[in-house]
């Protein structure tokens, strides 16, 4: 079943074409890897999907609704969540607070009930805190839950950011290079988390990743981008043997 449908999406920055005529479908429950050389437009694609960039032309349909003109917070409310290539955590806040913010759309207290706190707001805090603790448990970050995230090492920050995205209980989770800059062990942990998320929550994911080994291991399908265009799409094995893909990668290496 189709969860996300992108049709003929284009995005320009002045003279630079970040995306050109991209059409892509994502099915419910699958992990779609997006690969491509630097500057291929991968991050731009995610930015269009969750509304940080407004496409020049084209349509984005999510769960049967045209969300092309929705602002980011509305798309979040519909169930799109993400992590960023360059960690975008709330760095003065603790791990707990960051992940609690992932639950923002599920919580209900407002300015007045929050200022009074006792009663409605507190009940909400306790209830959602329980969910957050489950995620903290799952990601094995119990020991740092009260630390301001700005003080944590890079690998842990990446995990907290995943936790925050998960706390939203997304229908569609966008992961922009979740393993970039990690050592082998950290990468294996992250790959395990991603597979566990898919298995236990059935979350649909779009994963940008450069490490082909990881892509082969975790993804159901791969889309390849180059110069803002989708040049290939298929199963990991098909992609590995696709001449255009090989050329794109080798070509870039030669140049």
């Amino acid at each position: 079943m189709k969860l996300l449908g992108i049709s003929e999406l284009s995005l320009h920055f002045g003279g630079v074409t970040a995306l050109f005529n991209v059409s892509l479908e994502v099915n419910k429950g699958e992990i779609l890897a997006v690969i491509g050389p630097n500057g291929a437009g991968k991050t731009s694609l995610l930015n269009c999907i969750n509304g940080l960039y407004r496409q020049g032309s084209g349509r984005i349909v999510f769960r049967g609704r045209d969300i092309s003109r929705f602002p980011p917070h509305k798309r979040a409310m519909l169930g799109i969540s993400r992590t960023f290539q360059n960690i975008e955590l709330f760095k003065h806040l603790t791990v707990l607070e960051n992940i609690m913010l992932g639950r923002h759309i599920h919580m209900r207290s407002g300015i007045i009930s929050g200022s009074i706190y006792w009663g409605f707001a507190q009940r909400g805090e306790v209830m959602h805190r329980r969910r957050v603790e489950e995620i903290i448990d799952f990601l094995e970050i119990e020991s740092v839950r009260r630390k301001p995230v700005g003080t944590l090492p890079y690998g842990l920050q990446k995990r907290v950011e995943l936790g925050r995205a998960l706390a939203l209980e997304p229908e569609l989770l966008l992961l922009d290079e979740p393993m970039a800059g990690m050592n082998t062990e950290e990468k294996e942990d992250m790959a395990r988390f991603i597979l566990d998320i898919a298995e236990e929550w059935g979350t649909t994911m779009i994963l940008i990743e450069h490490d082909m080994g990881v892509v082969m291991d975790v993804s159901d399908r791969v889309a390849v981008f180059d110069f803002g265009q989708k040049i290939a799409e298929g199963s990991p094995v098909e992609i590995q043997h696709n001449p255009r893909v090989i050329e794109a990668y080798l070509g870039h290496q030669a140049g």
Partner: protein
Amino acid sequence: MRPKFPFVMDCGLFTTSYQEDMAVLFSPAAKIKVAAIIAFFLVLPYFVSPYFISVVNLIAIAVIGALGLNILVGFTGQISIGHGAFMGVGAYTVGILTTKVGLSYWAALPLAGIMAAMVGAVFGIPSLRLKGLYLAIATLAAQVIIVYTIIHWTSLTNGSAGIVIDAPRLGSASMADDRNFYYFAMLLCLTAIVCTVNLFRSRVGRAFMAVRDRDLAAAVMGINLLKYKVMSFGLSAFYAGIAGALLAAYLRVITVENFTVEVSIQYLAMIIIGGLGSVMGSIYGAAFMTLLPIFLRSAADFFGSFLPNIAHFLLSMQTALFGLIIILFLIFEPEGLAKLWKDIKEYFRLWPFSY
């Protein structure tokens, strides 16, 4: 979600433990400390001079205003040079409603907060597009517009003559009495402190801090930036409105001089010196900025008896001194008195083994 917790059925246990875990005063020592502080302030007016009480009253008013500005600047990462004017909206609302409409002060007080909140929210709308210096200038425009309106809408505000109001009464207790006013102001001040602490351990306050730290990430987590920025402006101005209404009851004459751009800057100084994004910092900063001119004046009086030139110099340098102190704090202790005090406590906790 994941059935990972074997105890997840045991809701009661979780509720109490997380509740305790999230409590502000989790240790008995903290509870005793707070009880002692409250007891101290309850008996204080019986041991000090009326002048001393009136100074504490001014500090209490400033604390409410400073908390409001800190919500916006320190916790939400916006900027406002219109805080003084929002206080003015509160004060004039009380003045107009009590003298022209015939409402009691107690009915006018919450309306003063609401009126200021609405005005603040409107002037907060540009914050979606403007940041930093540009937002500062936009809020300065709010300040100028409000003061201009107050001066020129004479049929409503009496212009530069101001509005004189009666001291609010509660039964037989008149707020013209410093001690009565003290308990009234302290109650509001305590409420403001508790509400602010509560706000920032719940959903909306957290969203404010998220907007401050990384607004795009906040939007991606489902936070409507315009709504939350406007809410922060509104809430900040609500506190200002209440502080202004209190000041009106304290002075009993409402004139525009109390709500000028200098006042706005003084409030900014309070939260910078006290500590941005800190509730305790708002309190320290408000006390500091209220006491500083008083100390300066008594220093001037003291020196004045034998060195008249120094006295004159001290008084005329007051504004420059404020500026200097702000700059020094920005350079050497950007987290303000709150951080300084924390460091001192930390130092003595480890003393004499610290180095």
